[in-house]
């Protein structure tokens, strides 16, 4: 903490705390209202009065949502997990291998190739989903989980981030290991990867969260109910359920709760990740 910006007067301190509390309420209120709404009866949720918390928590709302026939949230949840985990595992793999090649292997045209890759980051992903849809359809992958996994199994940005980290590991260790007859492959997995653990956790978390929250692409490549992920299922459910806001809020909570848990457990990694790499987009 930078203590030179500290404020001393008691009045000023009280004012800061009041302002921060009001702000925090604004940030947290939608979450609170979503959870409180998910536990209300239809009567309470459409009441003209403000009901902060239901008289009796309707946990049944969750059972109703999870066992619905038309919008099977259980299946959506499973699909989201499969897609996000597969995405993350493959991305970490391609990122580790790619970052190692760009950081340690001195091959011809390395810097040129790397600049070309970096240049692709300027193009908004929305522009290439049109063609990707055509590609996926021609690969016969429309309406499959693979369609949602495959295009996002490599990322220039993550390779760039990990390469930066790999570059910080002193070259002498690498050269010494080579003299000792250690192969590149072994060196990568025994030395580099364990050293980069915190960077890899951060990259993995961001990838998982991004995959969990993806919307436009999964919407385009899925038609069947059984292949939908949570974001898509929730959208369809919301347009089907009219004014059943208590059930909608239960659905929204099911989507968000895993994210909140991940955030609370890994807060340090996530904050460091944003602050260091400006991870977004």
């Amino acid at each position, binding site marked *: 903490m930078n203590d030179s910006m*500290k404020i001393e007067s008691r009045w000023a301190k009280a004012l800061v705390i009041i302002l921060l509390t009001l702000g925090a309420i604004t940030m947290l209120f939608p979450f609170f209202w979503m959870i409180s709404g998910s536990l209300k009866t239809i009567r309470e949720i459409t009441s003209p009065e403000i009901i902060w918390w239901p008289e009796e928590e309707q946990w049944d709302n969750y059972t109703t949502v999870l066992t619905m026939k038309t919008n099977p949230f259980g299946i959506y949840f499973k699909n989201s997990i499969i897609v996000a985990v597969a995405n993350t595992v493959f991305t970490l793999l391609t990122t580790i291998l790619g970052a190692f090649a760009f950081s340690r292997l001195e091959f011809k045209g390395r810097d040129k190739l790397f600049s070309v890759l970096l240049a692709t980051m300027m193009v908004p992903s929305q522009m290439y989903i049109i063609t990707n849809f055509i590609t996926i359809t021609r690969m016969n992958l429309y309406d499959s989980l693979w369609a949602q996994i495959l*295009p996002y199994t490599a990322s*220039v940005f993550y390779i760039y981030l990990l390469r930066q980290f790999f570059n910080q590991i002193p070259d002498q260790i690498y050269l010494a290991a080579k003299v000792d007859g250690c192969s590149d492959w072994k060196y990568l997995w025994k030395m580099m990867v364990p050293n980069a653990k915190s960077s890899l956790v951060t990259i993995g978390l961001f990838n998982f969260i991004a995959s969990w929250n993806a919307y436009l692409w999964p919407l385009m490549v899925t038609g069947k109910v059984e292949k939908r992920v949570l974001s898509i299922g929730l959208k369809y459910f919301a347009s089907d359920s009219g004014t059943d806001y208590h059930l909608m809020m239960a659905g929204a909570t099911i989507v968000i709760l895993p994210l909140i848990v991940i955030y609370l457990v890994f807060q340090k990694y996530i904050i460091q990740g944003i602050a260091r790499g400006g991870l977004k987009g």
Partner: protein
Amino acid sequence: MVGQNQKKTFLKAMLYLLPALVIIAVFVVWPMFHTLRMSFFEKFNIFTKTGEGFGLSSYIWVLEDPTFHKALINTFIYAVVTVPVSIIISLAIAILLNSGIRGSKFFQTAYFLPYVTNAIAIGLAFRFIFHSEFGVFNKFLGFFGIDAVRWLTDPDWAMVTLCIFGTWSALAFKIVIFLSGLQGIDPQLYQAARIDEAGKWKMFTKITLPQLGPIMAYQFVIATINAFKAYNEVVGLFGDDGPLHSAITMVYYMYDKFYNANRYTIAAASGVIMFIIIMLFTFIQLGMSNRKADQ
């Protein structure tokens, strides 16, 4: 001998890079060229991959389409409102968080939370909050004698509601960046200012703001790019593009033309136009911040 070694290293590197390069080539590099090519046709068959009528007709169609004008204007409004407003609010919050009060760890947790949330799900929560009949926001305004507003169903209010939601969603990321920027400012600068008995406001304008310069430029560029790509926020809040398409954005337009209307070349052309606009803004903003830095 040396040549052979070089070749070996090259082959080895290619093996390491193969998985990433294949994916990036197929799903990033190729689509850029293909989308660009598609945009120059009048009609395009996605199964035979052949087009008819090579030229600028799709671009002309898009640029003359009133719905695209609407999407363009809305996207601009969204960017012009949410970018500065969210930057000012998040800077204020970051400064308060950095003022050394007790419990700032708890506050940080609260302020950063919206960063990880799903736009569709939290959009649904906002839809419930902004509901014109039983939404809590109208009830809250009622305490102050303000009449109920049809936040989600009145076309005149739709963009206002979208901007409120967009600003709320954009705060967390910016607070994190500003906070880490503030913590990186050399404390000696403030100590020197204190010896000179400079006031708080003077410290802010003479030290904090200039020191945050590069971070501010970065925030503006990233926030503007993200605002131009707004889509999930729209669908989360309205379920579609708002009452009478009143909240349609550029990405929504592109998606709608491609997926619902099957006008592939129109979608491609609008995507290219969007890309050009984003590039122009990025360069203008970077140019402006560089010139400021030179002064």
